[in-house]
């Protein structure tokens, strides 16, 4: 295997992951609203794939999330590996029964694997209003039988997409849509899946730990750059996988720094950060030098207007302020 890489945007990396998944296995197919033909999806992630692989393998569905996720489950039970597209993560609620009642419980109940992936373009900050901005990952982290991943970099987006397709369990794959075209980076050319369930150190540091995922990894990196100018050295852990959670990596960083700030774009109330904080409080109390802090969105619907959305959602500014407080504790 060569270590060759190509500079790709986050979006291009996902497309390349899907392309390699399709190329490597005839059982893989892409389905969802508008994903096929020359259109290639609301965000153009699947553009060009129907031309390369045909309409059978890159198929449009009617506007019917409950139905087409259920259909994907039936395909998966028969050994296919559908990559099911949500146009926006917000619409995944329409498919809730198919996901949490049927797909997530099947292996436990009667032993049949359901190897599908749902791609869910999530997160806001791009003025898309209450129904095109949501971060519903906690619903699925709360559901036994699902895996949930949320990559923050182009390299992880491609590698985890490949892993999700090849996993024998239903995987909800949260794409941070603010990152689609705003970030790029080197992406391994070869078809190599990254392991699901392993966090990544996005920045090494010794004064405090910021545990986060998705688009907030980049907000945290921006905050950390400002903090370092004042001698505050933040470590950033990018969870990458929310279910399973890499508790070892969380424990290791807390033991190193003694201070924990958890950040996510989803609302704070019972979000993934609540589980991380509870784990650290229960298992690592003696390692803590300060109370655990959490930053998440407000417990409101996602507001549209720029000043409202900025007040709603964590950002480099609010991370920086919270980290300064924590560093001083």
């Amino acid at each position, binding site marked *: 295997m060569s270590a060759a890489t190509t500079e790709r945007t986050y979006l291009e990396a996902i497309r390349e992951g899907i392309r390699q998944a399709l190329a490597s296995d005839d059982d893989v197919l892409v389905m969802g609203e508008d994903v096929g033909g020359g259109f290639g999806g609301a965000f153009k992630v699947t553009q060009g794939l129907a031309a390369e692989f045909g309409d059978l393998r890159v198929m449009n569905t009617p506007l019917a999330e409950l*139905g087409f996720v259920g*259909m994907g489950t*039936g*395909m998966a039970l028969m050994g296919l590996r559908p990559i099911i597209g949500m146009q926006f993560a917000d619409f995944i609620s329409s498919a809730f029964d198919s996901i949490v*009642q*049927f797909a997530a*419980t099947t292996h*436990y109940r*009667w032993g049949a694997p359901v190897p599908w992936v749902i791609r869910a373009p999530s997160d806001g900050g791009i003025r898309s209003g209450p129904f095109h901005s949501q971060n519903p990952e906690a619903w699925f982290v709360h559901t036994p039988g699902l895996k949930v991943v949320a990559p923050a970099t182009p390299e992880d987006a491609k590698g985890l997409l490949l892993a999700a397709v090849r996993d024998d*369990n239903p995987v909800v794959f949260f794409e941070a849509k603010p990152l689609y075209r705003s970030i790029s980076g080197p992406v391994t050319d070869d078809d190599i899946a990254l392991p699901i369930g392993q966090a990544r150190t996005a920045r090494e540091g010794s004064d405090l730990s910021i545990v986060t995922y998705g688009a907030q990894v980049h907000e945290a990196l921006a905050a950390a750059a400002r903090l370092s100018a004042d001698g505050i050295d933040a470590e950033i852990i990018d969870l990458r996988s929310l279910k399973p959670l890499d508790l070892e990596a969380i424990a290791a960083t807390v033991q190193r720094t003694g201070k924990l700030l958890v950040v996510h774009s989803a609302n704070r109330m019972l979000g993934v950060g609540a589980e991380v904080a509870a784990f650290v409080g229960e298992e690592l109390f003696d390692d803590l030098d300060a109370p655990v802090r959490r930053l998440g969105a407000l417990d409101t619907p996602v507001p549209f207007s720029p000043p409202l959305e900025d007040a709603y959602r964590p950002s480099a500014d609010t991370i920086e302020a919270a980290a300064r407080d924590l560093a001083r504790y």
Partner: protein
Amino acid sequence: MSEMPLELTRQDRIELYRWMRLTRAFDDRMVAMWKQGRGVGGTFSGRGHEAISVGAGMALGPDDVAAPMHRDLGCYLVRGMTPERIFRNLLGREGGVTNGRDANLHGLGDLSLGLIGFVSHLPASMPVALGAAMSFQYRSESRAALTFIGDGASSTGGWHETLNMAAVYRAPLVVIVENNQYAYSTPLDQQMAVDDIADRAAGYGMPGVVVDGNDVELVLGVTHVALERARRGEGPTLIEAKTMRMLGHAIHDGAEYVPDELLDEWERRDPLVRYRNRLAAEGVTDDELEAIDATAAVQIDAAVAAAEAAPWPDAARVGDGVYAP
């Protein structure tokens, strides 16, 4: 069975009766056990639905896939799921289909038998059966998927989404609606403003067929035709089988809300009795029929005894199997 329904042999007919008899014997025993307090949790009787579950089940080819529900015991049996495995499931024992994970007739899935287990959120199996059908289309296989649903779930959005997609894709799918007059306590006139659910098929662009759900040969025949059509790539069919839920929604439900006259009327059309009388009139001897009845009773006796003697699942393994390895 591939030439059904045009030419049923004497032996074919005896087989149909044998499976209905076994299904009824299972159901009767189950109901009795639950009334005696020998059950675990709740359960669901399919009494009165045997002609549908057996007739449609017998129409399936060996490579077809079925996604039945809780009134379709006969379909599970016909596909080869043994009474003992199902009784173990009902009693929450090791060696049941779900090893104690799922209750009563829920979750009776076994892909080696071409069976997809259902969840309570009916009609959640409908789009799943469509997906199985679409996998056959994707792989250019001459196979079909069959699913069963009730009149109640025909009110849901998932029902509509599935039938619309099935028609759009010309999927090899057959959907049988078991119209048994009641969704729990709610009668048909409070559920829909049409006389025949099958009429809705026209709105999706697929054939809709009404069949007497208490006539096993008719059910077998229309299902056979629909499955053949599906396998030929001509698309889905909606079959409405009219029948009556002869007991309550679930075992605890006395169904006092159902008028006695309605039950009396349907009791006279009992699918098992009706078919037994027909076979007798056509020359199957009492000895033959009684032998079938006796064999079914013996099979159920053995299944119940084995299930009641079966071990409970190991509580230490409660977390096993949430994920595929």
